């Protein structure tokens, strides 16, 4: 075990700022990409569903006239 206390762990031998900003920025960016990905997928599905609905409305109108 490297650390005798939680304080020692967070201090990282005096390099806490450098170590933790590296890990924090990585975590934030990865999380941001995951959110962006799920949004993009949802938007793509909605787009496909909307186009399908529009096509159905079109063919419905043409059927009646």
């Amino acid at each position, binding site marked *: 075990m490297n650390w005798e206390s939680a304080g020692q762990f967070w201090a990282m*031998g005096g390099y806490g700022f450098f170590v933790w900003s*590296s890990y924090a920025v990585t975590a934030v960016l990865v999380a941001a990409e995951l959110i962006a990905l799920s949004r993009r997928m949802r938007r793509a599905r909605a787009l496909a569903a909307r186009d399908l609905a529009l096509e159905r409305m079109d063919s419905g109108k043409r059927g009646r006239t």
Partner: protein
Amino acid sequence: MSDSPLSAARVPTAGVSLFHYASPQTFFPLAGKLLWPCWIASLLLTVAGLYTAFFVAPTDATQGDSYRIIFIHVPAAWMSMVIYMAMAFWCAVGLVFNTRLSFMMSSALAPTGALWAFIALWTGALWGKPTWGTYWVWDARLTSELILFFLYCGYMALQAAIDDPRRADRAGALIAIVGAINVPIIYFSVKWWNTLHQGSSVSMTQSPTMATTMLTGMLLMALAAWAYTIGAALVRVRAIMIERERHTDWVRQLSNAGSNGDLNA
């Protein structure tokens, strides 16, 4: 029937299996099935990697605990180079075989590649300050990695600027393939030039120059980054497939299967 001209043109079975998944409608459900294994593998590898990085690997004799940035920095830098080569590969395949899925794969990889390139630069700066006394220096390794980040940005900006996807693919392919020359330059920069950046700690020809537990942690994190990258690229390529092919029958059928239907599967 058997001697009709069509049967002569039939592709042999091996050819079918090779190109079977080259069409979006067969690749879409396959990519969906691969997603959860990727996320789970990435999560488990990250937990194991972080545990090794912080609780197993010892404090470095010369750099103290600042070296623990390596567990992100090196995997990120590796991924940024591997992803660019993968993009160039898919673009070349797309240009040669004119397969639309290849270009979609390339587009799907770019943002994640840019992410890793940025993380490699960011963590490198934060590691440079305590060890070299500066966040940034224009040495060959750092500069070529910065160029790699700009190449990713240029590829994405160019694709976004051209409305016709086929033309966007071809223009992007040019950047991806020509820019690939930068990857070996990054890799060998520490050998070819006098750099402030240290040489590789892990190479294919020599045994690693670092403690086994440090190496284990780094490799676990690298595998986690691989699994994450594959998962992210698969999600993005699925979204691109729907966006681009939403007027084709296979997307219509999946979309038709229900509001929450098979586009999720």
